[in-house]
């Protein structure tokens, strides 16, 4: 766990953030802040998850919203069927979406580059049509979720959700960071740069790609599982929202895809800006701004903010 000083600092920061989050729930009562931060944390998990496949491995997934929605609907269905408590729902969503990710991983055997990206987009729409016709979870009409009135340790339910989400976010960042620096991460980078060359050099490309897609799917499922309890009403249009997919692509692209910190920076920056713009201007405009920022960053700064900073530091050293 602690291989060098960087590791120690990282875990201290992580623990401090978690403690600070708990401290906040004991002092601030205004529910708006928790709602806003929850949205940012959810986007962070999605961005970090997308980056494991998109940034580290080089396979673009347009179907993020599908993983997110299947995670949410797994929680809805199990909550309705067995009434399981939250940790089990999250684990179940992770398992279902992890399996889905594994399936997508096998797709990479036949589909490279743009064909893979288009296939994930197609998968999202096919799954949306299935949910649209599945009456048990409300089909196209949507479904209401009941949340408990009282919870232990916290003064309101949203605070509990906030802490759950904070812990999940920190966990996914830790996994992503570990992956980035490990042997697996180097293998994934080799696949991203040249898959054929990696295969020839003895990198087990299929196994690494399967690990990468399964992890991505499981993380996105985890991000989706608490969502029904957060909004208390889920329908296919909101769960399969294209905005979820755009955000989870835009945030890593803006932050920088090659390094684990990139999607975190992108998500905090873009997510924070979105909350401010939604309150001060309008929610449609904030959607537009994300789209424009995505296009501008891809065309002008393809390495993202991390790339810009690295370039600037190199110039200063000279």
């Amino acid at each position: 766990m602690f291989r060098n000083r960087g590791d120690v600092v990282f875990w201290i920061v992580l623990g401090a953030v978690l403690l600070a989050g708990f401290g906040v729930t004991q002092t601030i009562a205004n529910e708006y802040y928790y709602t806003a931060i929850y949205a940012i944390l959810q986007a962070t998990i999605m961005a970090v998850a997308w980056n494991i496949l998109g940034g580290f491995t080089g396979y673009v997934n347009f179907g993020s919203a599908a993983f997110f929605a299947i995670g949410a609907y797994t929680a809805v269905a199990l909550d309705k069927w067995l009434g399981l408590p939250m940790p089990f729902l999250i684990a179940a969503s992770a398992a279902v979406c992890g399996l889905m990710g594994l399936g997508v991983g096998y797709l990479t055997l036949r589909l490279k580059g743009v064909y893979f990206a288009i296939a994930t987009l197609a998968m999202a729409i096919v799954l949306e049509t299935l949910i649209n016709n599945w009456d048990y979870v409300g089909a196209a009409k949507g479904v209401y979720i009941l949340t408990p009135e009282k919870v232990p340790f916290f003064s309101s339910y949203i605070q509990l959700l906030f802490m759950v989400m904070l812990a999940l976010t920190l966990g996914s960042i830790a996994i992503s960071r570990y992956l980035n620096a490990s042997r697996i991460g180097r293998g994934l980078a080799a696949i991203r740069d040249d898959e054929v060359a990696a295969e020839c050099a003895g990198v087990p490309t299929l196994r690494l790609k399967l690990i990468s897609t399964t992890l991505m799917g499981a993380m996105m499922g985890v991000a989706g599982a608490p969502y029904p309890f957060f909004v208390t009403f889920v329908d296919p249009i909101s769960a399969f929202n294209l905005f979820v997919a755009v955000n989870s692509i835009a945030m890593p692209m803006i932050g920088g895809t090659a390094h684990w910190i990139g999607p975190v920076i992108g998500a905090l920056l873009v997510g924070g800006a979105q909350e401010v713009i939604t309150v001060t201007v309008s929610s449609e405009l904030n959607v537009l701004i994300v789209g424009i920022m995505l296009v501008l960053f891809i065309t002008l700064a393809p390495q993202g903010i991390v790339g810009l900073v690295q370039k600037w530091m190199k110039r200063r050293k000279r």
Partner: protein
Amino acid sequence: MDLFVNAIVAGILLGAFYAAVSVGLAITFGQLDIVNIAHPAFVIVGSYIAWILNSRLGWDPVLVGILAAPAFFLVGALIYRIYYAAFERTGQESLSGLAFFFGVMFIIEVVLILVYGVDYRLVSASYLGKNIDLGFVGLPLRLVVPFVVASAMTAAVWLFLSRTFTGRAILAVAQDRLALQLMGADPVRIKQFAFGLAIATTSVAGSLLIMIGPVEPSLGRVYIGRAFAIVVLGGMGSIPGMVIAALLIGVVESFVSSFAGPSWAPAVAFGALLITLAVRPSGLFGRA
């Protein structure tokens, strides 16, 4: 039996229209290798222009579609310029370019929502409510007119590609850039022209789309699946193959919505796309 015949006829009429939506994508995605995922979004823009000029000035939607095509051509040429400068020249076109067009699609959709809202829009023309009655099957003119215009446009694009020097240069640029340069044609200008042409076809396709049914900004997403499924099934860039694939998708969709319910129809194209990509990426008519 009546339902059966009607489903086939409606499917063929619809399929020809799908071909008009996909013909531009067959050029950009099939020939130029540019994954223009924003293609259907431009179709929706075409629909909105037809709606604006139809509802304000009472112009015929087909006329608007044809008149707006040159403007679409210029926009397409400009977008190719940006794409070339940012991605193609630096050799990182496939994935960054894809995300770029994804962003463009998203921006178009949101701008339409911001300016015109999420309401369904319709056009009106004197002939749209009428039917041609053939006894056993009724042909609504709101499907027949798009069928005729779409077939004419697809045929025109096909003739242009196979008979003229510029058209053949477009087919050649995908295969061998160097050979094209030796023939005295500039590959970048040829591609810019081809991309403009592809976007110009969306103007006409959009005006047909809004004649067939009401249009709202996010409708384009459904057409991503249809258009890509048709181009891939048709064997990437072959216009006759694309037309057959379009008719096939049209008929199957029409059957599914008549016999299983319209809410299942979107899964047809995307399902076909997914299966084709996974099982036979070269399409129905491509060489494996």
